[in-house]
């Protein structure tokens, strides 16, 4: 049922989403921790920056990335100076773009979980002589595990569903930047509706299953 081209697009998409989710959990957790606990004036501006991709059109993000990461842009100059070339049309470029694009979907659930936990468990742990790192890994993280689950699922699913940014900086290269959403777009443009239906059906089933699993596994979300 799946052609080689479709299989390649699916594998590429899964690889991208997995890598981006791992990076986002590593990068997003400290940001969420800081946002949940800080009383700094900077909380507002930083929260706004993190949430930007929710409201910004992908075309804006794609346009800025294309210009900034190009040979004449600030990021492009830096990557060239480091001997890495430029990022558009590369898999690494898609990873960078997706990390920005899916950031709020990972940071916000973790931040909510940390905030819901409150200070009390950490204070209790401190009286039992748990150090800061110990408190974080053996108290905060386990107590916030539903938040991490939601964050991982949403980060992964949102990256799989990415289209506009990839279209603008990807260059549609098979096996490198041609992800499932772009492949579907190609099929529609080329009048190959049978293939478009197969891939679209898979995407729909996948997205529904993932979200259903998240709501079933996450009682805090289903029963208030």
């Amino acid at each position, binding site marked *: 049922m799946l052609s080689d081209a479709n299989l390649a697009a699916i594998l590429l998409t899964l690889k991208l989403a997995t890598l981006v989710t791992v990076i986002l959990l590593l990068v997003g957790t400290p940001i969420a921790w800081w946002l949940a606990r800080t009383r700094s004036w900077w909380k507002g501006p930083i929260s706004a920056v993190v949430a930007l991709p929710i409201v910004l059109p992908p075309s804006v993000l794609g346009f800025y990335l294309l210009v900034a990461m190009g040979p004449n842009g600030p990021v492009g100059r830096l990557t060239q100076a480091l001997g890495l070339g430029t990022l558009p049309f590369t898999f690494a470029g898609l990873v960078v773009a997706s990390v920005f694009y899916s950031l709020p979907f990972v940071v916000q659930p973790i931040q909510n979980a940390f905030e819901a936990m409150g200070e009390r468990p950490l204070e209790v742990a401190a009286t039992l002589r748990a150090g800061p790192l110990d408190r974080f890994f053996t108290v905060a993280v386990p107590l916030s595990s539903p938040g991490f689950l939601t964050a991982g699922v949403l980060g992964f699913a949102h990256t799989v569903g990415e289209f506009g940014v990839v279209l603008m900086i990807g*260059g*549609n290269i098979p096996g490198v930047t041609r992800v499932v959403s772009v492949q579907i777009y190609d099929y*529609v*443009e080329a009048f190959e509706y049978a293939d478009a239906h197969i891939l679209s059906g898979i995407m729909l089933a996948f997205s529904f299953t993932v979200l259903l699993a998240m709501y079933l596994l996450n009682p805090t979300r289903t029963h208030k």
Partner: protein
Amino acid sequence: MKHLLAFFFFSLAANLAQADEVQVAVAANFTAPMKAIAADFEKDTGHKARLAFGSTGKFYAQIRNGAPFQVFLAADDTTPARLEKEGMTVPGSRFTYAVGTLVLWSAKPGFVDARGEVLKKGDFAHLALANPKVAPYGAAAVEVMEKLGVLESLEPRFVLGENIAQTQQFVVTGNAELGFVALSQVMKNGKVGEGSAWVVPAKLHTPIRQDAVILASGRGNAAAEALMEYLKSAKAAAIIKSYGYGL
């Protein structure tokens, strides 16, 4: 108050009846000339032309699904012919409004030589072209490279634009050193405006015939018919030619 409203709607309806409006789907490569032609058309005839720009394949899908366009200026001749066969057009309205010219273009001055030798030297990381599967200018570019015997060596360096406008954007931003685009996109005042270019000889690829057609929803729309006539006029022809198209 009631009378005033009624009068308002009545006069609005009367206005609409006099000056017809036509919604036109225009292939991305024809954006610049069509804007100029539409401005003249509105001035000369009093009709109004609303233009939408995009890729021919996307317009096809939208038209098949009831998009409210009355006239379609495609980037090829096969898509309008297909719509005609499917009964989505006014029979007999189809004609070739322009023949496209392909150009190999770089934003950098001196990068592309006047004979396209740069393709054989291969001194670049990315070559942009419109997706040959869906875009006629992309398909023509592939034909050219095949004829020159460089297709296999260059294919790994392809970056594909969704349409010809995005292809140009890859080159303008410098992300691709050079790319195949439509001559009309890089023409300013009758010559290549910026960067460097090789105007690809027409004999290297099958002609890019761009056909226009009145869609079924445009049957009896005076503005649609007037626009099709206008596209055949000497005034429109002069504009079309000034952007590097053949006729």
